[in-house]
């Protein structure tokens, strides 16, 4: 299993652990993640403007690089995944954006949305399979009660992201079962953490995160897991339950967490 890999800029700075644990886990699972060369920031939420192509070009470059290698493109950060998948959809289905972006890029062959974009969780579910993952777990997290925190970027717009049922998702719960722990279902798992509002209206983001934490705790969760660095930032401010990247627990279950830990701290 060989994939093109787009880490995204947060995974080089604040969320370096999300990346390192992912790479170590992938290796343990026999998945080759080939980082694409000279990738650039996906642009956060900004490429979603419908009238501007400049901000979509970095996604198009990454998508085209994967296409040239004939590989699917794997993402790790929820926001990068959201942006790249939506730009890919634009390139496939929106004539105006496709034409203008290709005119600008002057590629040997125009890019028209050929690349398959997969979040690492989707690779685990659809390519590896949670049953296979379960077999490869050497250090099951038995007895741990974990709340999946999806946030909004992975699930919506649901038809386009086609990630999971936006109101009753199961992928992270299934992941939690695969690594031997017990998922805790709570109603706020697909609610927004506040995102960037934390920069402007801190209290609002805090109250949103408090609701998430209280609900998860109320239903018996001991910790939360997420795939999004921004969710991690906001939830950690609340500080009620510990929050981990899903890749960290995956690495632990696969017995490769230790080797990454020093690197993370370094």
């Amino acid at each position, binding site marked *: 299993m060989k994939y093109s890999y787009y880490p995204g800029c947060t995974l080089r700075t604040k969320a370096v652990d999300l990346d390192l644990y992912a790479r170590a886990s992938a290796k343990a699972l026999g998945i080759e993640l080939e980082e694409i060369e000279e990738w650039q920031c996906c642009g956060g939420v900004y490429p979603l403007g419908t009238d501007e192509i400049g901000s979509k070009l970095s996604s198009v470059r990454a998508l085209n690089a994967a296409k040239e290698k004939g590989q699917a493109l794997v993402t790790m950060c929820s926001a990068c995944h959201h942006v790249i998948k939506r730009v890919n959809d634009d390139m496939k289905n929106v004539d105006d954006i496709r034409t203008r972006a290709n005119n600008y890029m002057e590629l040997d062959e125009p890019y028209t949305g050929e690349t398959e974009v997969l979040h690492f969780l989707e690779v685990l579910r659809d390519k590896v399979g949670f049953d296979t993952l379960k077999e490869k777990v050497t250090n099951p997290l038995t007895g741990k009660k974990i709340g999946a925190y999806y946030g909004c970027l992975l699930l919506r717009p649901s038809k386009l992201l086609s990630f999971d049922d936006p109101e009753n998702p199961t992928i992270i719960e299934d992941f939690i079962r695969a690594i031997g722990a017990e998922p805790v*279902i709570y109603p706020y798992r697909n609610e927004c953490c506040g995102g960037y509002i934390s920069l402007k209206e801190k209290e609002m983001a805090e109250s949103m995160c408090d609701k998430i934490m209280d*609900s998860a705790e109320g239903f018996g969760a001991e910790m939360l897991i997420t795939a999004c660095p921004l969710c991690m930032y906001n939830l950690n401010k609340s500080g009620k339950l510990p929050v981990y990247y899903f890749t960290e627990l995956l690495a632990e279950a696969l017995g490769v967490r230790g080797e990454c830990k020093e690197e993370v701290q370094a």
Partner: protein
Amino acid sequence: MQRLGVFVCHCGSNIAATVDVAKVAEMALMEPGVVHAEDYQYMCSEAGQAKIAEAIKEKNLTGIVVCSCSPRMHEATFRKAAERAGLNPYMVEIANIREHCSWIHKDMEEATKKAVILMRAAVAKVNLNTPLQPGESRVTKRALVIGGGIAGIQTALDIADAGYEVDIVEKTPSIGGRMSQLDKTFPTLDCSACILTPKMVEASAHEKINIYTYSEVEKVSGFVGDFTVDIRKKARHVDMDKCTGCGVCQEKCPSKKAPSEFNRGLNKRSAIYTPFAQAIPNVPVIDCDNCIKFKTGKCGICAKVCQAGAIDYEQQDEIVTQKYGAIVVATGFDTINLEKYDEYAYSQSPDVITSLELERVMNAAGPTHGHLERLSDGKAPKEIVFIQCVGSRCSDDRGKPYCSKICCMYTAKHAMLIRDKYPDVNVTVFYIDVRTPGKNFDEFYRRAVEQYGVNYIKGQVGKVILQPNGKLLVQGADLLDNRQILKEADMVVLATAIEPNPDVRKIATMLTASIDTNNFLTEAHAKLRPVESPTAGIFLSGVCQGPKDIPETVAQAGAAAVKAIGLLAKDKLLTNPCTAKSDELLCNGCSTCANVCPYGAITYEDKEVNDHGIREVRRLAVVNNALCQGCGACTVACPSGAMDLQGFSNRQIIAEVDAICR
């Protein structure tokens, strides 16, 4: 040579605003055979029809073309007008310059050009028309009603009271339908069972009505006046003649784990069961999937306790074949699956229920014996929130685009009944609009607000949150007050959209009756023929045609019955003379036509022919005109070109195409 007249209709401004009608008439005079052409504001009106009759007589016309609306709308009108003036009705052709032209075009010049072409094609065809004489077919004086809910029961009673035999085919073990599951009915709040069960009894006791419960329509053939229907009577495993309905078998049955369909799965029933106490017939059925005897071979308790010896484990399905003159569809509705509406936490909390489930909770014979209680812990609720339009008026593909029509009224009913019986319970209703047109309906809703203090909030609910303490938190918006609402509730009731019974697709296919994108059966005309299907002899009763409440359903059921009676009252029907005909000299008896004929109308005969002086006996196709429906499949399939459709001959169609391409 034909002497033809062309009549161009303005249809008010429907045609004349886009098509230069005078020009079309003027151009018509240049077509071969046309000796008269005129335009008029409303050709279908009495004055318009008089103009046609006058021209036929004065100019001695042998055929006419009416350039107007779709032939589905007024072909029959103009044929009758021509016939009254002494012309064979099959010498009338319609050029559809409304639906096919003026309604879909904007540019007058282009549209006029197209209208002229359509007129030319019709003239070319009518030049080759020959007078046709309709045949006759018999009418079987018996009606079939598919579905035994209030719609089917009412239709059956009305037809039977007119003196005709009626069979009701009902899929479930009892007649009664959705109405039997309701507790009270709006706007009078009388008990549903009290007004329905007498009708059920009346239907079952009526000498002209025969009820097949636990049965399904399996196959339909034939045509208006003469349908042949196979009905599958599913094995009940209980002898209808012997069973006394004592109920001991149900009491003693050790398998009591099957969800009760009648109580919407809120409680369990035994494997041998009648759906409810007032079921008609009061004869149980064995649900083989849940019966221990059928699953393991060991048990047989019901047979042991049955004093009448009615239990028959060996009973098999039985097919009954019956002939009918008319068929009424009354297949009703179900509520939609809420799988795609998980934001309302229906799958997460037993205290989130549908309105139909609430009917069962409020009903004395329901799972809680009529006590309003939370299904999670049996506690009495203090705060109840109703959410309207769950899946109705939905713009994406999760739900239905239409208004389910009954929810505003039944929600007001529920709210009022709860406030009346439990004054300490607060009731809140979230709504998009309150739609209560109907006699005494708006007054009813206002009573809920003004007298019973139900709290109506204009706005939708975004999410129902199950809290760790088991209570529900309803997150919504108050659009009038422009604020977000977070309301704690003990119970949430969802006014779930209704959709046609899923079986209707299968039934519509068997009947060749058309259905729309929402699976409602299509009526022959949305305004003027609302209870007839476009397929002759098929009538529509109740929600299978569109959402409606009980009074409307009963009214429509009566209307469908009148239409069916109108058909059954005739001894003979005129048949369409546009049937297939085989040219004896061209037919080589290959059987291709018989193989494609969906009506079994083609047989073969050995017949002597005189082929240009050669006399010999050949195997030839013969069309039975009573069975042929004029579909034309054989004319296309025939390899030697021997089959032709009268009124739509190959020559006529080629002439039309030539005229269009000229």
